[in-house]
Each structure stands twice: as C-alpha cells, then as structure tokens.
C-alpha cells in the first residue's frame, strides 16, 4: 500500500512539474500571445484589451497561481485559432486516439510476444537470428517512414485498405500496425531474454525432469513468469504512444489528439500544443499506475504492503 501511495504521490508531482514547465514555456514564448489571438492586422488598442482579458498584464507569480488553479479545474485555456476551450477540444478527440492506441497495443502483443517466445525456444538458431534482426529493424524504422510505406504498398499499389481517414475497421489496421511494429520489436527482445532466463531456472528443469511435456512446461511454467514484464511495458506504452500518435495520425489523417497537435504546429496554436503535453503526462501517470495495480493480480508474489 505504501509503495502504491508513493507512486500516486509521484504521479501528482509529475503533473505539477509538467504544469510548471508548460507555464514556463508559455512565458518564455518569443511571440506575444495577445498579438497571436488578435491577429496581425489588429490595432494596438485591441491587442492591449486582449492582453488585459487574458490576464497577461498581471505579475508572473499571480499569473502562475491563476494558471495552476485553472489547470486543477481541468481548464487548459483557449485555443488561439479556434475559439474553443482546449480541454473540450482534447476530450472530443481523445476517444479516437484511445481506440488507435488500444489497437496498437494489440498489434504489439500479437507480433512481439510470439516472436520473442519462438526466438527463445531455439536460441542462436536461424529463426532466432532472423527474428531478432527483424526486431532491430522494427525499432530502427521511424514511424512516419513505416506508415507511408504501408500506405503505399497496401493502400495504393494493392488497394486492400483505405488511403486514410477513419471510421471502419479497415481504417484502423494500417495506423495501428504502424504504431505497433516499433513496440513489437521491444516486446520481442524483452520476452526473448525473460524466456531464456526462466527456461534456465530450477523449477523448469524439475518440471522437465518429472516428465512434463515440453509444450506444457513452456505454456504452464515458463510463459507465466516470462510475460510478467510485459505488464509494465504496456503501462509505459500508453505514454510512448502519446508521442507516436502525433506522427501516425498525421500520416493517416486520423482525427485524434495527435492530428490536433500536427494542425496546431502549423498555425503555432500554443495552448493546444501545451494542452496535449499535459494530457500526455496524465496518460503516462495513469498508464504506470494501471501497471502497478495489475502486477499483484498477475503475480501473487507481488504485494504492496
């Protein structure tokens, strides 16, 4: 319990730190936010009015307290370009992104875990080396290159999947695969090394010695323990994916949070960009907490007490 509380406390600290950081960035901004809201053709009077409305003429410390109070109430400010609250904007886009992330995690597991197990069963074999080489390629290919290649082959040359957009099941396959492949490389490597370690342990040898079938030894004895680190990896994936979706959603035109950032970069819509950074931090904290909560369920030896 103590450890769990510590993690929650740490999570709150992270969120606070990210708030300080995003506030600092907004202050350090070379461009004048009031001018950005008003547009380039507005008069000095209008800009000054907007500056007063936004509270930008108050002392920095007071601005920060107001900002923090707003963030705590879930108010991330207004978008410069669309007169919408950033929180509303994020919440309207979040479901599409979560859907994509979930599908991405599914692909990671489907590709990475079997690859890692297969490689570990015959270490040093041709299959092992091939799979590990693939996993290296998977972690070394940038997602935008992979995404565009998949689009070119499976949507343009051989029109199996749509070229972009979202809605149906066919739309989600390629972006989720893009998101999943680089992660699958890591999964394969971790599962392989865990499997190798577990397969060398005494209880596995005991099981083999008392005549348990090899397939049973692997599924019942070895796999259970070798897959434990995967829980933590899924937890941290949620955070890693928050960066990945910016690339993948812009390549595939997936209308989620990532596409929102991509569009915001183009028009330098700072509140939206900073809002997504904060959302990313929240997701990382939640992901790690979920993994912490899942560990004792999967492994009775782990107890927070």
């Amino acid at each position, binding site marked *: 319990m103590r450890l769990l509380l510590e993690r929650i406390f740490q999570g709150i600290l992270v969120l606070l730190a990210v708030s300080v950081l995003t506030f600092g960035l907004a202050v350090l901004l070379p461009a004048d936010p009031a001018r950005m809201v008003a547009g380039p053709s507005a008069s000095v009077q209008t800009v000054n009015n907007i500056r007063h409305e936004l509270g930008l003429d108050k002392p920095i410390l007071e601005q920060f307290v107001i900002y923090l109070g707003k963030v705590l109430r879930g108010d991330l400010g207004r978008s410069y370009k669309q007169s919408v609250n950033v929180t509303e904007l994020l919440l309207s886009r979040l479901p599409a992104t979560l859907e994509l992330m979930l599908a991405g995690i599914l692909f990671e597991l489907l590709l990475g875990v079997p690859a890692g197990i297969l490689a570990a069963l015959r270490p040093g074999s041709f299959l092992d080396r091939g799979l590990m080489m693939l996993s290296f390629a998977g972690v070394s290919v940038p997602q935008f*290159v992979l995404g565009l*290649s998949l689009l070119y082959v499976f949507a343009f040359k051989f029109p199996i999947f749509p070229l972009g957009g979202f809605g149906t099941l066919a739309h989600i396959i390629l972006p989720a695969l893009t998101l999943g492949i680089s992660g699958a490389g890591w999964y394969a490597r971790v599962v392989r090394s865990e499997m190798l370690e577990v397969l060398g342990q005494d209880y596995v040898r005991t099981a083999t010695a008392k005549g348990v079938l090899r397939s049973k030894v692997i599924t019942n004895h070895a796999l259970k323990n070798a897959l434990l680190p995967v829980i933590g990896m899924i937890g941290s994936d949620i955070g890693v994916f*928050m960066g990945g979706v910016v690339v993948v959603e812009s390549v595939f035109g997936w209308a989620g949070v990532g596409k929102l950032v991509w569009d915001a970069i183009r028009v330098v819509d700072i509140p939206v960009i900073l809002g997504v950074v904060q959302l990313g931090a929240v997701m990382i904290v939640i992901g790690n907490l979920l993994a912490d909560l899942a560990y004792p369920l999967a492994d009775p030896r782990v107890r927070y007490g």
Partner: protein
Amino acid sequence: MNNFDTRDSIPGKLERMTDTGLPLTRQLQTRGLAPRWKRFWRDPLVMLALLTVVVLTLMAVFAPQLAPKNPDLNFPEGLSDAGAPIAPNSSFWFGTDLLGRDLFSRIIYGARVSLLIGVLANGAAVLIGVFVGLIAGFVGGIVGTLLMRFTDLMTAFPVLLLAIALTAILKPSLWIVALVIALLNWVSLARVVYGQVLGLKSREYVTAAESLGASQTRVLLRHVLPGLLPTAVVWGTLGISTSVMLEATLSFLGVGVQPPTPSWGGIINESQSYFTLAPWLVAFPGIMILLTALSFNLLGEGLREAIDPSAKRTRF
C-alpha cells in the same frame, strides 16, 4: 565483468603472441582481448553496421566533394513538362524533388544534418547523464536524492510531445533541435550510471584509495570515472540512433531542421502529399534514416555484448 580495460593484460600477451605471424593489430583483436571481443570483430552483422557507420561519416564529411550536383539548385530539366518531379534516371540518380532539385545530392548533404545532430545531441546527453548519475551516486545525501528524484520525474515526461512543444515554441533550428534532444535523452543513462557508481564506490580498490588518503576528487576522477567508460561508450553509440530518429521525426513534423537545409526527415515532410506520385522522395530518405538508426543500434548492441553483458537498455 569489466573487460574493457585491457591495459594490464596486453604487454604480457604481446610477448607470447609475436611468433604467430599475424599482423599485430589482428592478434590483439582475435587473441589478445577477451573472447567476447573476438565475437564482436567476427560478427558479420556488427561489421556490416560498422562499415555503414564509416561510410555515412565519410559521406557527411565529404558531402561537397561527393555530391554530383548543387543540392539547393532548382534544375529546369529537373521537372517534367507538367512540372512534376522526375523519377530516378542516369542524370538524377535518385530522381528530383518537387522543386526540381537533385535528390541524390540532397540526401548526401542530409547525412551532415543527421549525423551532426545525432553525434552532438547524444554526446551532450551522455555528458549530462554521466554527470548527474555520477554526482548523485558519489555525493549522495540530499543532493543525490534530489537529483535522482528529478531524474525519476523526467522519465515520466512525454519525451516526443515535449520535444515538439519546445521546438515549435523556440523557433526551430539545427541547434535548438540538438539542444532539445540532448535535454531529453540523458535520463535513462543517469539512472544506469547512478547504479554503477553505487556499485563502484563499494569496490575494494576505491576503499583502498580512500584509506591511502586520496582526496574525494582524486577518487572520483581516477577511480570511479574510468569505471563508467564502458557504459558511456555503449550509450554514446546506441543513443545516436535514438537522436537521429528523433531529429528525423521532428523535421518530418516541420519543427526540426528548416528548409532549405536538406534533412532526411524534412525531405519526406516536403513531399509527403505527393508520395503516391513520387514514391522515391519518401523511399530514399526513409531508407537512409533506417540504415543509420539500424547501424548505430547494431553497433551499440555489439559493443554492449562485448563490454558489459549485464547492462539492460530502457526504452526512449
């Protein structure tokens, strides 16, 4: 465990080996060093990766001599009559881009940007990581706790998102990109170094040096720091691949290196909407990024296996 420091073993072995007739360097590689190094030099994949890294470096250094054409020149014959980019041919080996510029020359110059940022940013990240981990582990106490708490905080930051926000806000340029990558990439190394320093501090030779009256600075610089060299070398290699990919991604998103400076990610960004018509504009820079990242990864992993098989790498 630590076979990187071979200074004391080489002279004795040299005497025993001089009659084998092989060149001296070759003997050192295959017989004088630990068996793990033998595997390093004989692993075809690692050697291929090393070769690629050497070629890429030469490409970056001698870009003006190697590029057949001016990378920034818009060639009138580089566009079709309809104004479309031209597919690879005998004059433009990799084809041309949307402005009729020679893609092959731009790719060669792009190696400069990628490697410069990869090496610079990662070098700085390694320095920061070693410094933070070393101070936290060696000094300990409140300073150490605070430093490691800060590092823990950093691991929970959305790295790519922060990089995007930082570069988008701070007028993107080559130096800003390198700085941002350096500031975000030191975190995992600091944790590894911290753990190692704690281990090194309790080693007999450190205790011996301390009991002989060596100053803290001397112990730190002469006895603890050299022990961190293997880790720094491995991360210095592996991290380049992370930095190169991060730069490419930022440039692809338009917040990295700005045109007209040719960067691989930037070339793809410029031509993304035409990739079905001109797939070479995505394929060639994409292959280059993949090759670079893969080579540094393979080389770093090879070094890791040769130097320290127990070290684990965390995800960026």
